[in-house]
């Protein structure tokens, strides 16, 4: 009777393992650049890390802030420049060490240090101190009502582990450095690292001791993450069953995926607006036209904005996969409203009249700089804009290049007319004003390539950063948006849509930041 018993035992073992094993094969265009959480502020890198490591506060797929390693947070009554975070108790790192306030102080200081690439997100922090084993106080340089929202991608490390492995300084990715923390992970997250070959394959297994096993679905037991650069290959791999989940289906393949019985597509407006920027200064980089920069005239800018037929771009170029925009702010950002998002209909006669009024009856020539591998159908949108503008007499010469050439070009202000996409990780208008509208200077306006400089707006931008009364702040923000919309510094095009394709058995809420977190996946 021994043999049947063994067989039964084996069968039981097999059954439990197969019933328990839920592998998710996940394909993406690129790989994470490192596993060191403070070495790169880049979408895919943060996404892969977020399966294994956690911040104090995260952003749930519905856009709300969600308690993670901190359970509560509030501004200290006695001092508006201090935030108090209460930490979750009983949390363990993957190696079994307990998580406490020491680790938070250490991790935040590491993220603030000179070599860290995350320091810009939490630049307002002046000091972090532990006020108990499960409580920390963060002092900011002046009141900062939106600090928790800025910390959602600052992950916590175990102090002892980092020090023991000599990785206290964040890795320098640009210099090609490799550290223990860049190839190993000891986080508190729902998945543990099993193996990783950069640009090839990363395997993670479920952390069964995860504190959130009851809070979140955490149904997937193993995650195999494979970068596949070519979009068509990625879609084919999904269709043939080699992958279970991809995040970026090309718009022309959506119908094909939908018509496959075992697959489905989940859609959501992305936290990213795509728009054109215009050089509004007195001098064109490409040389002035009759001694002037036509784009410095607000009538010309408004006419150009009107010439862009957003509905045609949405219907034809994007095949419906976009939300036409009248403002360069994604729909769920604080400060967005239907009124701000309105855009003028294209009326050729009116546009020509506006141009004639500004002294450009016969139009003018300008170069449009565009990336061809950054946003969804970026080059096709630019081509469409070229033809729309030429119909009103503005001759546009399109220069579409790879993002590696394109971004340095707009950084160095070697452009007069360019395409840009912008996401708002803090979900607040201030972020957009800081980076895109403030006069370009050291701390502000680092992505403002329009040369737009409005001293009144600059002081308002500084004022909203310190305004603690949210109602008053919202009113100020609304006023600021009306100013910049009237000035037509940027020509909004649309908000991109995300299309996540997956096996039908998964139930997933698409994250507007395109940050998939496998712990939210449930399986039917």
């Amino acid at each position, binding site marked *: 009777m021994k043999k049947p018993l063994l067989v039964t035992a084996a069968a039981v073992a097999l059954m439990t393992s197969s019933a328990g094993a839920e592998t998710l094969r996940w394909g993406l265009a690129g790989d994470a650049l490192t596993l060191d959480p403070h070495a790169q502020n880049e979408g895919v890198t943060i996404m892969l890390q977020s399966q294994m490591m956690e911040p104090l506060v995260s952003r749930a797929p519905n856009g709300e802030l969600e308690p993670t390693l901190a359970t509560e947070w509030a501004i200290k009554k006695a001092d508006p420049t201090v935030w108090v975070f209460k930490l979750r108790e009983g949390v363990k790192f993957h190696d079994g060490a307990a998580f406490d306030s020491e680790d938070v102080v250490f991790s935040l200081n590491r993220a603030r240090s000179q070599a860290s690439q995350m320091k810009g997100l939490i630049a307002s922090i002046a000091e972090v101190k532990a006020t108990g084993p499960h409580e920390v106080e963060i002092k900011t340089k002046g009141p900062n009502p939106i600090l928790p929202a800025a910390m959602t991608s600052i992950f916590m490390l175990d102090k002892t582990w980092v020090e023991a492995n000599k990785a206290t300084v964040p890795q320098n990715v640009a210099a090609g450095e490799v550290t223990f923390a860049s190839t190993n992970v000891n986080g508190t997250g729902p998945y543990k690292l099993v193996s990783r070959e950069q640009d090839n394959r990363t395997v993670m297994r479920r952390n069964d001791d995860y504190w959130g096993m009851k809070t979140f679905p955490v149904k997937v037991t193993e995650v195999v993450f494979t970068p596949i650069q070519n979009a068509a290959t990625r879609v084919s791999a999904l269709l043939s069953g080699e992958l279970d989940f991809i995040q970026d289906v090309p718009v*022309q*393949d959506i*119908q*094909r995926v939908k018509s496959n019985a075992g697959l489905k597509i989940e859609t959501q407006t992305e936290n990213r607006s795509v728009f054109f920027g215009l050089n509004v200064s007195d001098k064109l980089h490409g040389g002035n036209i009759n001694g002037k920069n036509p784009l410095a005239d607000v009538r010309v800018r408004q006419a150009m904005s009107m010439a862009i*037929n957003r509905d*045609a*771009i949405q*219907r*034809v*170029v994007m095949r419906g996969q976009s939300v036409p925009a009248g403002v360069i702010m994604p729909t769920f950002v604080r400060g967005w409203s239907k009124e701000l998002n309105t855009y003028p209909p294209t009326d050729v006669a009116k546009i020509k009249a506006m141009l004639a009024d500004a002294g450009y009856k016969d139009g003018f020539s300008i170069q449009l700089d565009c990336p061809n591998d950054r946003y969804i159908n970026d080059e*096709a949108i630019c*081509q*469409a804009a*070229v*033809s*729309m*503008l*030429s*119909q009103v007499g503005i001759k*546009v010469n399109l*220069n579409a*290049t790879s993002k590696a*050439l394109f971004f340095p070009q707009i950084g160095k202000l070697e452009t007069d007319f360019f395409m840009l996409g912008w996401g708002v990780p803090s979900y607040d208008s201030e972020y957009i004003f800081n980076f895109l509208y403030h006069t370009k200077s050291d701390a502000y306006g680092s992505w403002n390539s329009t040369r737009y400089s409005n001293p009144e707006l600059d002081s308002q931008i500084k004022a909203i950063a310190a305004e603690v009364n949210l109602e008053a702040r919202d009113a100020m923000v609304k006023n600021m948006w009306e100013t910049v919309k009237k000035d037509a510094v940027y020509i909004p095009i649309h908000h991109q849509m995300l299309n996540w394709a997956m096996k039908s058995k998964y139930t997933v809420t698409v994250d507007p930041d395109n940050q998939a977190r496998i712990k939210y996946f449930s399986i039917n």
Partner: protein
Amino acid sequence: MISRISSFWASDIGWSFRGSPVAILSAIMVVVLLMAALFAPWITPQNPFDPSELNLANGFSPPLQENPFTNDFFVFGADNQGRDVFSTILYGLRISLMVGVLAVAFGLVLGVSLGLIAGYVGGRVDSIIMRTADIQLTFPAILIAMLIFGIAKGVAPIEYRDQVAIWVLIVAIGLSDWVPFARVVRGAAMVQKNKDFVLAAKLAGQGPMTIMFRHILPNAMSPILVIATISLALAIIAEATLSFLGVGAPPTKPSLGTLIRVGQEFALSGEWWILFFPALTLLMLALSVNSLGDWLRDALNPSLKS
């Protein structure tokens, strides 16, 4: 002119032409396509490369159906930017034919000159030229063209790439097909150079250039004509292949191959016409030129004459 045509009609070749329906059909096709390419700006309803003539709202209009947004009508449909596919084909045909003809002309001049020199001079010069040809034949022509194209692309500044692309393409394809010309001409030169009329010319004090081009070359004319025609079909296909791979004619000056590459992005999502019509045109062009070349080879081959 008329007397020339009638004398061609009455000649051996003319007789063979009249007796071959394939040749007649191919010739008609070639003439039609040539005319279409030559007169493209006058025949096409729009200039597809003038952005002011495009309307994005026409994007993806199917063939022979009225676009519900603009009420425009396209025989072969419209592409993703609202370009009329019929117009893009005629403009693409111009680029394809121009590249093909110029590439063959380049290969012909190069091959004929090198072949004459090799055959006439002989010795070490002959060995160097013909061994180079042998080595080159061991590589596929497309590979050589890609290599040349890659180097030129690396050397040219970014803003001139689109402008030089067409010329690089011509040189690349031309350089990859000079060998057949050289071989045929070298053979002829070796046979003819010891003939009495060549020796007589030498004695009369004529220079090697005159002898090679005036006395020897005319004897190799008919095989050169055959090779040129067949090379033309191959060059058109080579150009389409390179452009399809994305290393040929740029999208701002597309050839048929570029149009096929662009169209294949949409083939699986239902907009078949953006791929189908350019592909059909390329097929007809290559097939008709090739059949014409085949017929010419047979017609000029004395051993096949009864």
